[in-house]
Each structure stands twice: as C-alpha cells, then as structure tokens.
C-alpha cells in the first residue's frame, strides 16, 4: 500500500527525511508535503437512498466528491468507470472491482429520512488496496435544508482520516460583495459557505464596508464601515445581525481590526493627525491600549494563534515591511527581507507560517514565510492580489484578485500553501476581502 502511494507522491518526503521509500503495509494516507503532485484517485458511488432520500443522496455524494477533488490532493473517478454498484450500505465491498478502476479510497453511504423528517446520513471510508475500513462508520442527522453541511462534514472526515490533518469544508467565508463600476462601486458584507454556496447579505450597500474578520468561534464579525462618513470598526453578531460601533474616538479613523484568539481582545489601526498606529482593545470593557507610537504607518495587525505576539506592517524604514512585536507592544523585529513591499500579514492557525501580500516590480503576490521571515515563498502573481486569509486547517489561503483596467473586477481565489491548485471561488458578482471562519 505504502509503496503504491509513494509512487504517486513526489518522493520528496523520502528525500527530505533521508529515508528510502519502502514498500510496506500501512494505512491509506496522503502525506501532505510539497511532493503531492499526483492526486489520490477516489470514488464516491452515489449514496444508497432510502425512502425520500433520492435526489439528496446524489447531491450529498456529489458534494463530498467535489470537496475532496477541490483540494487538488484527490481525483474523483467518474461514476461511468465504476464496475461495482453499491446497492446496500451493509453489503460487503467488492474491493477487486474498486481496485480495478484504481480507486484507492472509497466512500460509501446511505441517506434516509426519519419519521421526524430529518435527514439521516451514514457513511464509511474504505482503504481499497488494504481491503479495510478506514476509521469507523458514522451517522449524521440534520434537516434536509442542511444537506450541504452534512456533506461537508463527511468530506472533512474523509479528508482527516486520509491526510491526518483537520478539514476545512464545513466552514464559511465572510467577504465584501461588490457591484457597479470601479468609480461607483457599492460594497456590502456577505457570508457564504467556503465553496460559494448559501450566500446571505449582512449589510446593505448604503455605506462603504471593508475587511470583515471572524471571531475565533465564528459567532461575531469585525468590520470597518463608513456609515457615519468616517471609517469606524463595528462588531456584528452573526446570528442576530445586530451590531455596535467599537471605537468612537472623535476625529480619529479606525480600521483593519482582527480578533485575538480569546475572542475578547481586538487589535486594529487608529489614525489621528494623519498618523496610523496599532491599538488593542478589550471589547468587553472597551478599554484600549496603544501598542505602537511612531510617526510611520503601522497597520494590518494579526495575532499569533497563542495570542502572545502580533505581526503587522510598517513603513518605518521608508518602505512597507513586516514586523513582529509582543501582544502588549514594545520592541518590534523586522521579519521581511526580500525586495519589494510587504503588507497584510496574517498568522496561520497552526502558528508556523505568516501569509502576506507582496508588491514587487508592479506585480502583486500572495506569499508565505516562516514566522522569523525565513523560507519566503510566493504562491501567486497577478496585477493585484491581496488580503490572504487562512483555511481553518492552515492548508489553503483565500485572497482577493482584482483585474486590471477600467473594467477591473475583484474576485476571490484560493490556493494551496504549496502554490498549487489556484482556483476562483464562485461568487455571484464581484467579491473582495475574504475571511475564513473556523471549522463549524
């Protein structure tokens, strides 16, 4: 099994660890490294439908397959290639038939509607070449309207069991929905599933809104709005859509807010007298603390996942660069060292990387570096890429890409942290400033 997998991988794991790739029995697993070039083939035969579950069984199976294939780590085998049909959830799996179509992973399931009208979905994940179940079967229950969430949860389970890492499919993205031409652009906050489904608008477009950010539990959203005519930070409750202004210093502008990992501290930029510095606030007490005081621009702060440090951008040396300081301010150390301008740093949920926007030679890039600034890698390049946000598992980055010229439009894209699998995230119109929620 392992040998077979390794032949599909780039052998980089083995190379890096100095160990020869050995043929051995082992669980079905994708080791996610930069070496994953050839996606793992898998099959999700249509879930067995009981009672009224027909269409939704097909929808759920298709969405699970789409989630997995969308990672770039897996490749769905088309159903017309299948030899075996799964007509009963409890029947033995014909492993030989799935081996014959080279399905390494197999996901089977059943969809029923119970007497209360709830959707009951069972699934199992199989390691075809080992002829074994991977993990144990599970049952999920939800409303029929919630079938997408059930499918995403199952796909997260499959992803986790095979990669050993957390999933990200049962998550949402808050973003700025854009309409109208460049010089009259209307913006409003919207929230959707990570894959672009189930869009709901959170504000109207009467006031300019910018850069929404989720709380660590996904229940609240920080954003900047011009509804008073001046940019101010608001905190919005996702469930009730009620909101309140956070920072009301007269004659000041506040923007670029982000929650700390405790969901109580917020770090943001405040501009007074033309000078922009970084502040933090305990949003329960409203007490704020100034963290930087330099005549230069200090903005785009982001906490480390343990809350002990803040990465931010500053032009204190004359060009915009990235710095790290303690959560209470104090001396900052510069971490960006390459040519060009660096901005919008965001600490990864795993804590090991910082994603950023880089501007160099009239191009924009999304990149990642280690938290000490080493091992910088640029993942994208275009006329204008900016504003990275991390998937809950730290494997994927979503960002804004804006096209050039008078008809330029902003859209959301995602890319794997290896730089592979660049995809446009489907949205109805223009979209910018995505922020990924935690796993729901």
């Amino acid at each position, binding site marked *: 099994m392992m040998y077979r997998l390794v032949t599909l991988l780039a052998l980089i794991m083995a190379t890096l660890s100095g160990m020869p790739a050995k043929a051995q029995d082992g669980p079905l697993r994708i080791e996610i490294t930069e070496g994953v070039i050839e996606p793992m083939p898998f099959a999700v035969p249509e879930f067995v439908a009981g009672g009224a579950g027909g269409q939704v069984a097909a929808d759920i199976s298709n969405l699970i397959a789409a989630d997995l294939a969308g990672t770039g780590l897996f490749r769905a085998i088309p159903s017309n290639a299948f030899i075996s049909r799964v007509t009963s959830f409890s029947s033995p799996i014909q492993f030989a038939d799935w081996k014959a179509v080279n399905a390494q992973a197999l996901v089977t399931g059943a969809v029923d509607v119970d007497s209360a009208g709830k959707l009951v979905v069972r699934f199992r994940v199989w390691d075809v070449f080992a002829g074994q179940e991977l993990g*144990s079967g599970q049952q999920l229950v939800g409303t029929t309207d919630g079938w997408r969430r059930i499918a995403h949860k199952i796909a997260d389970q499959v992803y986790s069991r095979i990669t050993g890492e957390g999933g990200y499919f049962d998550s949402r993205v808050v973003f700025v929905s854009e309409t109208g031409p460049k010089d009259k652009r209307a913006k409003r906050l919207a929230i959707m599933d990570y894959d672009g489904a189930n869009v709901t608008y959170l504000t*109207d477009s009467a006031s300019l809104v910018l850069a929404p950010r989720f709380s660590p539990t996904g229940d609240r959203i920080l954003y900047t709005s011009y*509804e008073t005519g001046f940019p101010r930070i608001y905190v919005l409750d996702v469930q009730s859509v009620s909101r309140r202004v956070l920072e009301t210093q007269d*004659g000041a502008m506040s923007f670029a807010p982000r929650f700390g990992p405790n969901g109580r501290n917020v770090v943001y930029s405040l501009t007074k007298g033309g000078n922009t510095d970084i502040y933090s606030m305990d949003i329960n007490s409203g007490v704020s603390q100034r963290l930087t005081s330099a005549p230069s621009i200090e903005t785009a702060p982001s906490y480390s996942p343990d809350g002990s440090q803040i990465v931010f951008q500053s032009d204190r040396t004359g060009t915009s660069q990235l710095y790290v300081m303690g959560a209470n301010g104090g001396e900052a150390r510069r971490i960006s060292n390459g040519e060009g301008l660096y901005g919008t740093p965001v600490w990864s949920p795993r804590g090991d990387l910082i994603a950023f926007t880089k501007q160099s030679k009239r191009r924009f890039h999304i990149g990642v570096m280690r938290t000490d600034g080493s091992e910088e890698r640029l993942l994208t390049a275009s006329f204008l890429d900016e504003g990275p946000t991390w998937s809950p598992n730290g494997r994927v980055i979503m960002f804004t890409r804006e096209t050039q010229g008078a008809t330029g439009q902003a859209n959301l894209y995602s890319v794997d942290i290896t730089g592979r699998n660049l995809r446009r995230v489907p949205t109805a119109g223009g979209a910018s400033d995505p922020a990924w929620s935690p796993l729901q």
Partner: protein
Amino acid sequence: MQTKFERGEPMSFLKTTLILCAGLALAACTDPGRFDGDNTVDLNGDNASGYGSGTASDPSSPAYFQQAVGDRVLFVIDTYTLTDIARNTLDGQARWLLANTDYQAVIEGHADEQGTREYNLALGARRANSVQEYLLSQGVPASRMRVVSYGKERPIEICSDESCYAQNRRAVTVISIGAGM
C-alpha cells in the same frame, strides 16, 4: 469486523436562515450617510458636474470654490508632501474658507490602486492631514475641518495607468454648510 455507528457531533443546524436581515431590513437602522446630506458637495461619482448650489460666477458659492479656487490637490506616488502647485491651490482654499465662515470642510484623502487596502487608507489619511495642517497654518480654524481617508476605495479615474493614478492620488476639500460636526 463490527462497525460501530457513532452519533456525529450534535448537528445544531443553525437555521440556515440565520441571517436574513438582508438589505432592506438593515437600511432602516443605518444612519443616513454623512455625505448624503443636501448641503454636501460630492465630487465623486455622478455629482461631479452638479457642483452644489450657486454658480462659479458667484465668488461665495461652492461652485466657485470647486472650479475657480480648486477643491483638490494631487500627490506624487506614495508621498504626502504638498507640491508648489498644491500649496498655491490651498492658499486659495484658505482665503475662501476665511471669507466664507459658514462653511465647514471635510478633507478627503485618496490613493491610487497600487498598494494594499490598509496601507492606502493610512496613506490617504496622511494626504488629508497634510492639507489640513497647511490650511491650519493659513489660519483656518481646526474646528471647521475634519479629515477622512478613502484609501483606494473611491477612484475618479478608472484606468490602470499612471494617467489615471495621478488623478486619484488626491486630497479633496469638500465644503458644506452646517454639517453639524
């Protein structure tokens, strides 16, 4: 092998209908935009030719301020220092504001689209502040001025060339009567 079915974590399916205060509902709770007032002269967007009240031949009219005095100054890329041309324009703005004391000014700072959203907000604030400081130095009281930055959010020219960028790197002095600052 015996398969155990575990109950998935409780699937509190937040009513998918969660949110739903779509546009209309919120509109009710949104204050009228600060710049939507009738007295405000909005140079951005389609009011640009409408120029508020009065005509340019009346030296005390907003139209005169915009067209004859000049309501905006431009900046070199990624800078916020005032050029000689800008100072000349601002001298005229200061004289006009000192002669027309009913008017308040909001100074809007803007940036071109090169640069991140946050940086451009900060840069626009620097530009607006440069104008405010200059007007202050010319005797316009601080109580009559406010500054705001739009960063790259409100371009007036939409091409992606320097010819457009040069027009977008600006600070605009927007005057209004009794705006209730």
